[in-house]
């Protein structure tokens, strides 16, 4: 087990290295540079040149790449080219909202999707199954921001149940924190509920065809017990997989949701950083997401072992 984790962590290094190189090259080959963004629209060419030199942007690309990677290896993520603040601080500042939104979304999605999927599988072919399935297709067919707007219109503006926008950390009081997270969470979880519910359904149906389900029925077990005790346990691995995949896919929706609900999270940070060509910030955030991706995949693999005794590391 320890050996496995170690091996996986080590194997993540080349992946992250690859990410670092790809991101670095993609960014540095793009037009625009932070100097002009800092100096504003009317800066003179000389002023820009000075700024670039002082930011190290005039060195050869490869040299910049190595300097950056060397710094990261030492745990130094550099300072934001635009605000001059340490990138690590900026990212940590923005990490909380994104983390909160992601966690609530995953929890909501799983909590809603698994029962839906199981019910649909159980009632396979019946109207409730068709309803769930149709709902799930619609779930991924509506752009996230439209869902967000509609929810704001109904629940914030018309009914006034929740604030329109913003974010307060948990320390500002649970009510403050939770009330602002409800709408973004619901918005963001839509496609994931759809996705997870259908995967649960498919896998439960598939498991229901297995021989051991027949064995369970032959024991005299009622259908509900078959479903909950035997089918769900065996469908756990693919379900865990898809939840893992959902988490890694979350970021796309996060960027949009953070924009719609004005949540100061990482998605917005990176979007603004792209527009301002704040290289150090973009690189760090993407590297962070990639690390999370690797970490989630590792956790998913470890969870397999929890749900399936055949998998041992």
């Amino acid at each position, binding site marked *: 087990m320890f050996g496995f984790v170690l091996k996986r962590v080590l194997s993540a290094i080349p992946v992250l290295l690859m990410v670092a190189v790809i991101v670095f090259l993609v960014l540095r080959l793009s037009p625009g540079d932070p100097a*002009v963004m800092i100096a504003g629209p*009317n800066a003179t060419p000389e002023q820009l040149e000075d700024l670039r030199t002082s930011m190290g942007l005039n060195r050869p690309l490869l040299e910049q790449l190595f300097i950056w990677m060397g710094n990261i290896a030492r745990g130094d993520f550099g300072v934001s080219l*635009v605000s001059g*603040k340490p990138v690590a601080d900026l990212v940590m500042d923005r990490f909380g909202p994104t983390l909160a939104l992601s966690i609530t979304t995953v929890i909501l999605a799983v909590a809603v999707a698994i029962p839906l999927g199981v019910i649909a599988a159980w009632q396979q072919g019946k109207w409730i199954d068709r309803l769930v399935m149709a709902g799930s297709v619609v779930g991924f067919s509506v752009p996230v921001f439209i869902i967000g707007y509609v929810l704001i219109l109904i629940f914030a503006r018309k009914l006034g149940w929740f604030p329109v*926008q*913003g974010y307060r950390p948990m320390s*500002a009081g649970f009510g403050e924190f939770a009330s602002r997270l409800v709408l973004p969470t619901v918005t963001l979880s839509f496609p994931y509920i759809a996705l997870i519910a259908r995967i649960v359904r498919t896998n439960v149906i598939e498991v229901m065809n297995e021989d051991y389900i027949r064995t369970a029925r032959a024991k005299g077990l009622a259908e509900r017990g078959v479903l909950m005790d035997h089918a769900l346990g065996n469908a756990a691995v693919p379900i865990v997989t898809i939840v893992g995949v959902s988490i890694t896919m979350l970021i796309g929706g996060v960027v949009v949701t953070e924009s719609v609900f004005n949540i*100061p999270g990482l998605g917005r940070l990176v979007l603004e950083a792209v527009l301002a060509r704040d290289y150090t910030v973009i690189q760090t955030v993407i590297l962070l997401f990639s690390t999370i991706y690797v970490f989630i995949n590792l956790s998913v693999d470890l969870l397999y072992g929890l749900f399936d005794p055949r998998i041992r590391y």
Partner: protein
Amino acid sequence: MFMNRFQSGLLKTTLLSLCLSTAGFAAQAETTITAVMHAPLRAVDPVISTAYILRNYGYMVYDTLLARDSQGAPQPQMADWTVSDDGKTYTFTLRDGLKFHDGAPVTAEDAVASLNRWSQVDKTGQVMAALMSEMTVVDDKTFTMTFPEPTGIALIALSKPSGVAPFILPKAAAETPISQPITSTIGSGPFKFDEAAYQPGVSATFLKNEDYVPRTEPADGLAGGKVVKVDKVVWTTMPDSMTAVNAMLSGEIDFYEQIPHDLLPLVEGNPDFTTEMYRKQGSQNLVRLNFTQPPFDNPKIREAALLALGQQSMLDAQVGAGSQYARTCPAVFGCESPYASDYAADKILEPHPEEAKAALAEAGYDGAPVLLMHATDLNNLAPQGPVIGQQLRDAGFTVDMVSMDWASVVARRASKAPVAEGGWNVFSTTNVLPDVGDPIGFIGVAAGGASSWFGWPDVPEIEELRGKLASTSDPDEQKRIGQEIDKLVIDNEVMIPMGEFYNVTVKSASLTGQLDAEAPVFWNMEKSE
């Protein structure tokens, strides 16, 4: 290591939230204005950047030596001045009670250091520095500026309200090279910057500076006493204007600096809100042609472009057809400025596709595509590209409109290379009227060839006139020179004015007392319960 960072982050978040929560609880005791500004605050150097949000930030945290009143006349702010009889020496004396936020008194040394740094960056400052023979500290409160010739530049420059205003920084900060943004937020202005609550790109908090001693005169424009009547101002940004309006409507914010004109119907007529337009904060659209690359190296083809373009469509697309928040204006320096002129008004205001076609034919335009850079991510700029593109096309140009974010426009416009190698032919932008109305500082009219603003027009007569204007102190003479420049700018198509529009500020009805100034300033503003 990582953990430490994480904890420090957490700590910070906690602190911030504590502040916010106390704000929530102590609403009665404390008044807070929550304002959505037009752009997020990401950096804190108000001098090296021409970004308007940094100018606004500067007015919160810093103070200026002189300031313009609502009529545009320079008035004392931190300092009073005397002029020697020959008009060559200006003596500035700092008033009493000026203190930086860290408690240190403001001295003449600070002022001189700040002006030195500023004049390396700002165009007007550069002109002033070029004309000036020396600037000397006399004592703690006094310094002098000496010019070889009599000139009015000192007062114009030191009261410059916008672009980069000459804010006074502590000497230590002011000695930072301009290639390096300062990170200190210590000023002597009416508000203190709340460093702990600052989240770059998200929010910035300003606390009332209890130690600030305002002038005794009533506030007038940027001049007069800066009396702060609230405890706290919080600036936030909302990436999505719909969200901002929704937040405004549900009472989550008090102040929305620039509401998109299209959303005005949502708040107009609602007694809970007031909408106000500040003419001095208006903007001028301009189109810039690249003089160094074909086809616009050909004056005849530049003239065709001038003929092709017209103002009304652009303004319609920006603020809505028939809106009161825009007006056509043929004047290079803006219709509110002393230099306003209606030279070649018809040619500038209306599109003349047929005449443009004729001009093109005459010039032998070969149909080579004209590369138009279109910035898509800024509300005011996004509508410009399509309008310009269509007008040029209507006049027979082949237009290749390239859409990109503003950062890319800014990068690409610096290229003097041919289009095929990453260069460009046309771009457009906006400038605020206070900047536009200053023939010395306005980058759009500088025509010094390679050293001038992107597009690099080379019209020596204009440069000559601008020099002359800077060293003139007679208002009538200034006006005459200014209008002369206007004519030359249009005749050479140095820039093409595309109309003026005014942003609208929406405020909750409880908010009163905003000053009619070149920038949105928060002193004198009151929030009733």
